[in-house]
C-alpha cells in the first residue's frame, strides 16, 4: 500500500473517488447537517470525501456482530500513543479489538478527543440561545436508533477533517481545519463494522468553516484481480 499525497495520482475506479482501488459497492452523498450509517464488510474500504473542504465528519464505530463492542477513543490513542489519527491508525474498540484501520489520508490530522457537539453542550460553549440549533448528538441518536442503539451507546467519537491541537499548558480547542475541497480519508474494515456518522451541523466554531457542507461516502471492495 502506498500513501497518496496531495500531488500523487490517486487510484480509483473510473471517475469515482475511492481512495483505494476496488469495485464500488456503495456511493452515497451525505447532506450537509445530515446523518449517515452503513455496515462496512470486513476487508472493504470506506473513503470519506470532504467535498467542499473543512467539513467535520463525526463518526462512531460498532462491531456489527455485537454493538456493545464499540469504538474507544481512549484505547485507540493509548495504543498508538498519539492523539492524531492518520494513515496507520488502528481504530480500536474498548475491548482492544481493531474495528477499522486508516489506510490512506490526504489531510494528515484528524481528531478523536473533541467529541461531538450537542444541543446541551452548546449551551455551555456558546450560550443558551444555541440550544435549539441542530447538533451531532441529534444525528447520532436518530440514526443510531435505526440500528437499536440509544444514548448509552454514544461515546467519545472520531472527528474526521477536524483539527484540535493541545497547547503545552493543556489548552485545547477546535481551530481552523487543515482539509481542503476534495480531500479524502480511507478506512479499511477489520471486522464487519457499523459506521455511524453525523455530518456536523455546528455553526458556532471553525470545525465546518462556519458553513456545513455535504460529504461523500464510497465503499470499495478489492476486485478479484487486485487481490
Amino acid at each position, binding site marked *: 500500500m502506498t500513501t497518496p499525497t496531495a500531488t500523487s495520482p490517486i487510484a480509483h475506479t473510473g471517475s469515482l473517488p475511492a481512495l483505494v482501488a476496488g469495485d464500488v459497492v456503495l456511493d452515497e452523498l451525505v447532506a450537509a447537517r445530515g446523518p449517515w450509517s452503513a455496515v462496512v464488510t470486513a476487508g472493504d474500504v470506506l473513503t470519506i470525501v470532504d467535498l467542499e473542504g473543512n467539513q467535520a465528519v463525526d463518526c462512531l464505530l460498532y462491531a456489527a456482530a455485537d454493538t456493545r463492542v464499540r469504538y474507544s477513543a481512549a484505547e485507540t490513542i493509548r495504543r498508538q500513543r*498519539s492523539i492524531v489519527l492518520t494513515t496507520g491508525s488502528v481504530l480500536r474498540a474498548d475491548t482492544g479489538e481493531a474495528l477499522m484501520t486508516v489506510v490512506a489520508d490526504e489531510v494528515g490530522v484528524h481528531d478523536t478527543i473533541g467529541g461531538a457537539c450537542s444541543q446541551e*453542550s452548546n449551551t455551555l460553549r456558546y450560550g443558551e440561545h444555541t440550544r435549539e440549533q441542530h447538533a451531532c448528538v441529534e444525528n447520532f441518536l436518530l440514526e443510531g436508533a435505526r440500528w437499536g442503539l440509544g*444514548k448509552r451507546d454514544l461515546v467519545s467519537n472520531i472527528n474526521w477533517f477536524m483539527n484540535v491541537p493541545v497547547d503545552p499548558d493543556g489548552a485545547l480547542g477546535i481551530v481552523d481545519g487543515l482539509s481542503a475541497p476534495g480531500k479524502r480519508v480511507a478506512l479499511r474494515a477489520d471486522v464487519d463494522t457499523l459506521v455511524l456518522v453525523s455530518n456536523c451541523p455546528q455553526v458556532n466554531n471553525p470545525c465546518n468553516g462556519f458553513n456545513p457542507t455535504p460529504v461523500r461516502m464510497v465503499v470499495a471492495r478489492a476486485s478479484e484481480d487486485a487481490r
Partner: protein
Amino acid sequence: MTTTATTGTATTAGARAHARAQHGRVVPTMRHVPAGTAPSLPDDVPADAVTWAETVAFGRYTSMALARGTRLRLVDTAGDACVSLLLNRAEAPHERLNTADTVKVPWQAYLGAGHPLLTDAGRLLATVVADTSGRHDALTGTTTLAGNTERYGAGAAHSASPAGRELLLLGALKHGLGPRDVPPTVSFFKGVRVDGDGRLVSTGSVGPGAYVDLLLQVDALVVLANTAHPLDDRERFIGTAVDVVAWRAPDDLTALAAEALVGELGPEHRRALENTEHDLTARSTR
C-alpha cells in the same frame, strides 16, 4: 461424609461460631462501616460528617451512591495508585461523565483544581475542588482485558492483573448497568501530557500523599477502580492502595457558586452549574 471431632465447622453451630468469630477484624484494605469507625481520617475532615471511608487495594474496585454536596477525597497515600472513575447521575444513570466534553468545553485537557466534570447533558456532575497531585489523565481511559492480557498475561477482574475496564464493568453491573454504560473514564494520580506532535507522554506519579477532592453537584453513582495506568511501562503489574473518604459538605456547594472555593469559575463551568441548578429546581417539589 465422615466428620471428625477436631473440625470446628462440622456442625451448623460450629460453622456459625466460626463465621461470627471473624466479625470485627480490621485488615489493611477494607471499607469501614460505619464510616466514622475508620482508624484514621484526614485532619481536615469532620468526623461526624463522614459517609464513606475505605482503603481500596491495588487491583480492586469499589462503588457507592453519594448525595449532592458530598466531598469525595482520594488519597494516594503510598504514591503508586491510579484511580479510574466512572460517574453517573444516580436517578438517571444514562446521564454520565463525558470525558470529551470535560476537556473540550472548558478548553483544558489537563485536570486540576477548578476543573468541571461534565455530563453528556451539559450539566455539572462534580468539580475538582482540591488537587495536590496535578498528575491526572482524561485522555487514555483505563486498561482493557486484551491490553492487560498482552502486557501482563491476564486482565480478568479476579486475575492477578485486573484491567480497569473489567473492574469498572463489575461496579456498573452492581448498579444494574452493563457494558454499554462503561464509556471512556478519567483517572487520577498518573499523569499524561500531549507533546507538540500530539504524542502522549506519561508523567507518572507525583509521589506519596497526594490527594484530589471532588465536590458532587448531583446525587451520583461512583465507581472507582484502582489499577495500573494504561501507559504504565513497567514490566510487572505493581501499584499501591488508595484511601477513599467522603463527607457531607453542603456549604461547599454554596462556596463553589460564590467563587469562594476554587476561585472564579470559567464561563462554561458557570453555565454547567446553572444548567444543573435549573434542572434540580425544576425537579424539586419545594
